[in-house]
């Protein structure tokens, strides 16, 4: 027990005072180093680091807290663009994402070849009801073709959900370059794995030819 009544209170207020002062002390420190503390990436970094003191606010929308590479929001579909500018979906409509989706918010319509009636590895349509999606990322995790990934874009508020909130294939599709830009490490890893797999395949083929 504190020997003087109110001592504990004052001690507590001291913590708050320190916190308050730190903001300005830190401002002065940044000024003296000739750096800008606000509206710069460096400033935001320092405010989210373990050494952050004083003010903690990141002033959205003027400053945005950077999201980490693994950040996941709504899924998107990746298409590749070849030299002729032709788009090709990576998705083969195998349906694993629809099977693994916990709230079952993915609908895939498979394309059938009009002549033979056999399925073609390309989705005719692809829907995600974002009013059901729980952003869990299992679809992206278990997709064997790296065709569905989780987006970083979280600024998608709407006025009318009935019209806007079932995303179709067109709304979901993004180019590979977009994926490479938001998840560079993952992209590099997957690409090197793919190159390796293809090299191995080619080597096997060559070996078989020799025989």
């Amino acid at each position, binding site marked *: 027990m504190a020997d003087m009544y109110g001592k504990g209170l004052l001690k507590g207020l001291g913590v708050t005072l320190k916190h308050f002062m730190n903001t300005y002390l830190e401002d002065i420190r940044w000024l003296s180093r000739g750096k800008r503390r606000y509206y710069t990436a460096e400033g935001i970094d320092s405010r989210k680091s373990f050494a952050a003191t004083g003010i903690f606010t990141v002033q959205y929308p003027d400053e945005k807290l950077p999201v980490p590479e693994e950040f996941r*929001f709504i899924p998107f579909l990746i298409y590749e663009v070849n030299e002729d500018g032709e788009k090709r979906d990576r998705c083969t409509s195998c349906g694993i994402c629809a099977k693994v989706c916990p709230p079952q918010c993915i609908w895939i319509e498979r394309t059938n070849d009009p002549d033979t009636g056999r399925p073609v590895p390309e989705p005719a349509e692809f829907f995600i009801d974002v009013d059901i999606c729980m952003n869990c990322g299992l679809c992206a995790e278990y997709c064997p073709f790296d065709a569905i990934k989780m987006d970083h874009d979280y600024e998608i508020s709407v006025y009318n959900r009935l019209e806007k909130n079932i995303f179709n294939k067109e709304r979901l599709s993004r180019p590979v370059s977009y994926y490479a830009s938001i998840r560079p490490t993952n992209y590099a890893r997957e690409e090197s794995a793919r190159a390796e797999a293809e090299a191995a395949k080619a080597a096997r083929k060559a070996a078989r030819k020799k025989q």
Partner: protein
Amino acid sequence: MTEEINTPGYDIPPEMEGQVAITTLDKIYNWSRRNSIWPMMFGLACCGIEMICAATSRFDFSRFGMEVMRPSPRQSDLMIVSGTVTKKMIPQIVRLYNQMPEPKYVLAMGACASGGGPFKEGYSVVDGVDKFIPVDVYVTGCPPTPQALLHGLITLQKKIDKQSIKNVRWYSKDPVEPIPIPVLGPDLMDPREYALIKQYSTEKLVEDQQVPAVEEA
């Protein structure tokens, strides 16, 4: 800020520039309203925590004039439906909505409030709060990050900016009817649908009486 308001589309004579500001009533009305939206302190589920986060130091929505979260609906302008709305809770939500004074706005935060979310298939979950009360902005995500919520609030501000004092519902002559409060029966019942429920149940009874012998076997 002054630029935002001071662009009504009238030219100011050069000799008066910098001394006179012209604006429309709508602009100043909306500007003051959108910068003092008081949300109701009302967290339902997981999204409620992200809503509190949006109020705390890192995201701090008091920068938008929203710091005064009111626990009483009588003093709030905005209801952030933050989380899963259950059938047991919807009567209270409708009642709170009715108690809010005009102008009032509703923001459905997250997948659950918008359309039932991952729990939509459940037996005691309302598949979207908009089935009972009008919603102005839907914020997607499960849960939306605080920044996504702030984006939703900015979207709401944009909506407020577009409103005009001439045709908003709270100045119209017709009285605004309160929304009838849903009743908890064997399942959730909307008082407006009693006739339909009765018809449905009667038909179902007939069906049930025809089928059971088969089902028993």
